[in-house]
């Protein structure tokens, strides 16, 4: 206001990094869809005993002898379905936390679906960059853990 009175240009509004959850009327219930797929995969892991196979399916591990970024995810999924969250966290922390967040997203979507809505997340550009950097750091830290734990 002072700048306008003084005849100068209006200073640009300061953008605060923000994360906003809202109930969208036109979006897909992605959380519910991916949670359903995750449950199906979990059932397949438990029924086919895919987490107790005597050999590894991982191409990276077969070639290098080292675990890849997602090694242990199948075993973590098997432990989650068997209601052993601690065992799942020790197997692959990031995959387990991602799975738990997905379940919460799915539950929220299921609750909102009764009103014909789906959960949507709006991220400001400033925060999006921070989230990207955080995701890369978390991936690398998780990989270091997997290497140290010998998954």
């Amino acid at each position, binding site marked *: 206001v002072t700048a306008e009175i003084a005849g100068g240009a209006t200073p640009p509004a300061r953008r605060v990094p923000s994360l906003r959850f809202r109930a969208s009327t036109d979006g*897909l219930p992605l959380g519910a869809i991916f949670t359903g797929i995750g449950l199906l995969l979990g059932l397949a892991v438990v029924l086919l005993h895919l987490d107790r196979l005597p050999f590894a*399916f*991982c191409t*990276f591990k077969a070639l290098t002898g080292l675990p*890849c970024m997602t090694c242990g995810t199948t075993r973590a999924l098997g432990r989650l379905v068997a209601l052993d969250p601690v065992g799942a966290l020790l197997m692959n922390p990031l995959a387990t936390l991602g799975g738990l967040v997905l379940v919460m997203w799915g539950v929220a979507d299921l609750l909102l679906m009764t009103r014909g809505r789906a959960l949507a997340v709006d991220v400001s550009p400033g925060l999006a960059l921070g989230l*990207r950097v955080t*995701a890369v750091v978390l991936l690398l830290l998780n990989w270091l853990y997997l290497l140290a734990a010998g998954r």
Partner: protein
Amino acid sequence: VQVVLGPLFVLIGIFVGSGLSHLGLLLLGARQGFEATFRVFCFAQATALFQLVPFCGALVGLPYMVVLLVVGFSEVHAIGEGRAYAGLFLSIVTACCCVVTMAFAMGGIGALAGLASR
């Protein structure tokens, strides 16, 4: 069993594939939502028609699908083709290698079981 469950598996595969690709693209600056990535992924599945040609169909279809995905992702997300390729590659390297290998292994086990039952 495949006739009944095949469409479900295809649907799940498309959702999982486009979800992983979208995560990779988000890390590299994708600007549109999941629906845009999902749409591109669905259109690119048209190259599955090449699989009708025995033996060499996949050799043509898979690289062409990668080309379509890269061009589609770069257009809808307004990012360069290099970033689009990197996002796709990132999702394949970080997550899909295990899934793809598992799918091939399960298919192989199924084929072996089918041969053994004859």
